């Protein structure tokens, strides 16, 4: 398995390295989006002393800074790729291979994000440090790395499940787009989840989305809070691992249902 991951990841790394300029766009987009947040929250906190929903200005900027960087680590196109393969019929070639497509797609993600690490994460980290004076160091490195890996897995599995909708529907771009909006909102990408009403926070706690981004960010900061829940790092990371396993089983279930419906249309 490791040999497969290494081989496919390396090939994907080389393939995407040819499109470096596409990835390097992030060096513009990331800081610009952060600049918007910088102005928004600086203005909001100018008229408000202390904390808002558990965050002071510095913590809020760290929240958006680390959310940006985490998204460079976990970003994923497995769902889009899978639905495209199913729609065009090219998925047939993957059925004939002695490697599961899920492992293949996961390995592609590893390669793609390794490239993203050098071309997106490291330069943007330096920009945050030098331009915005945002010093991003995790409260506990080990717990954070574990949580980040689980977030990486969760993002992949959720997107892969959405991609499998292609087994049932002809075009899934629309559904994917709606899903991406809700996924990012409920993962805390746009605003910390503590800003949502209490009832919504309690519901969000039981949904898998917070484990993509919100949990790794809170583990990075060093404390976890959502709704009425306030957990230790070990507890929330343990819960995150449980959700990843459940999601893995769920994706396997969907896979077995979906593959029966694949007819190779479009070949």
């Amino acid at each position: 398995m490791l040999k497969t991951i290494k081989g496919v990841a390396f090939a994907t790394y080389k393939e995407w390295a040819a499109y470096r300029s596409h990835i390097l766009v992030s060096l513009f987009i990331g800081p610009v989006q952060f600049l918007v947040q910088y102005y928004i929250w600086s203005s909001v906190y100018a008229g408000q002393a202390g904390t808002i929903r558990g965050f002071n200005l510095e913590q809020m900027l760290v929240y958006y800074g680390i959310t940006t960087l985490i998204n460079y680590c976990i970003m994923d196109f497995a769902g889009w790729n899978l639905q495209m393969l199913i729609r065009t019929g090219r998925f047939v070639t993957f059925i004939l291979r002695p490697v599961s497509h899920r492992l293949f797609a996961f390995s592609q993600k590893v390669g793609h994000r390794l490239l993203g690490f050098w071309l997106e994460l490291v330069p943007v980290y330096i920009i945050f440090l030098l331009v915005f004076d945002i010093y991003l160091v995790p409260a506990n490195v080990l717990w954070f790395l574990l949580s980040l890996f689980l977030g990486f897995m969760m993002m992949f599995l959720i997107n892969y499940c959405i991609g499998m909708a292609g087994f049932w529907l002809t075009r899934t771009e629309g559904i994917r787009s709606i899903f991406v909006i809700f996924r990012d909102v409920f993962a805390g990408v746009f605003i910390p989840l503590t800003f949502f009403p209490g009832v919504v926070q309690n519901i969000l706690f039981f949904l898998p989305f917070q484990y993509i981004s919100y949990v790794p960010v809170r583990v990075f900061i060093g404390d976890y809070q959502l709704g009425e829940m306030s957990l230790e790092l070990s507890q929330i990371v343990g819960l995150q691992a449980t959700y990843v396993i459940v999601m893995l089983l769920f994706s396997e279930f969907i896979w077995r249902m979906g593959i029966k419906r694949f007819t190779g249309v479009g070949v």
Partner: protein
Amino acid sequence: MIHYLRIFLSGMKVALASRMAYRGDFIIRIVVMFFGDLLFPMITTLIYRAGASFPGWSLPEVLLIQGIFMVVKGISFPFFFGMIEEILDRVREGTFDLMLIRPCSVLYLSIVSSFNLEYVGSFLGGIILLSYALLHIEINITLVTGLLFLLLFFFSMLILLSFTLIMSGTLFKWVGNSRVYEIFDAVTKFCLYPRSIYSEAFQNLISYVFPLAMIAYFPAASLLERLDRGVIYSLVVCLLFFLISRAFWYRMLKQYTSAGG
């Protein structure tokens, strides 16, 4: 003139027919536009619900800015924003050559062949937001204010067209880079909030260099009677910006090499 109108109508017909081939997906995309654009008003509402605010701006006033942005997009994007996707695909596949041999302006043809009704979702969301905002703000709209708003609204569409020209122009050289959309989304986020939240230097930048403030802030400010004299300079900058972006588009077109053909 009638020749151009006929081209426009037939372009619109073909574009609509191809979108309608997948009706379900088309409707879902309208819903996506609706929810996607309501995301930032939702975030603004959550900020205000938490007891915070943008100093000097009430929630309905900020929502007015964001509603205007959505309406401008909803009205203008169906007519020209699809040009980016059209050029992106055609340049990558090499089929843009077909546009060059037709007896019509290439720019005009690129615009009319990309008619896209999906942005009606943005328009609907914008109308809802505008209605909410206007119901909660005491605004005295006179004939002068109304005319001024319409003028600024027109310039707002002009700026969006200018950005579309710049983005689609880069695709002649920067083949297949779909991330131009992300660049647009990132840059236009500055339009969604009151200008006063930015530093003075940045306010000048978005008013008199890259006139992003014209997209939503200035039209909203005209209704709220918060306009300053700077808007006159900004109008001139908008015209210049449009002319430069148009020239840029044609300059980039010259660099088209039929790479995918």
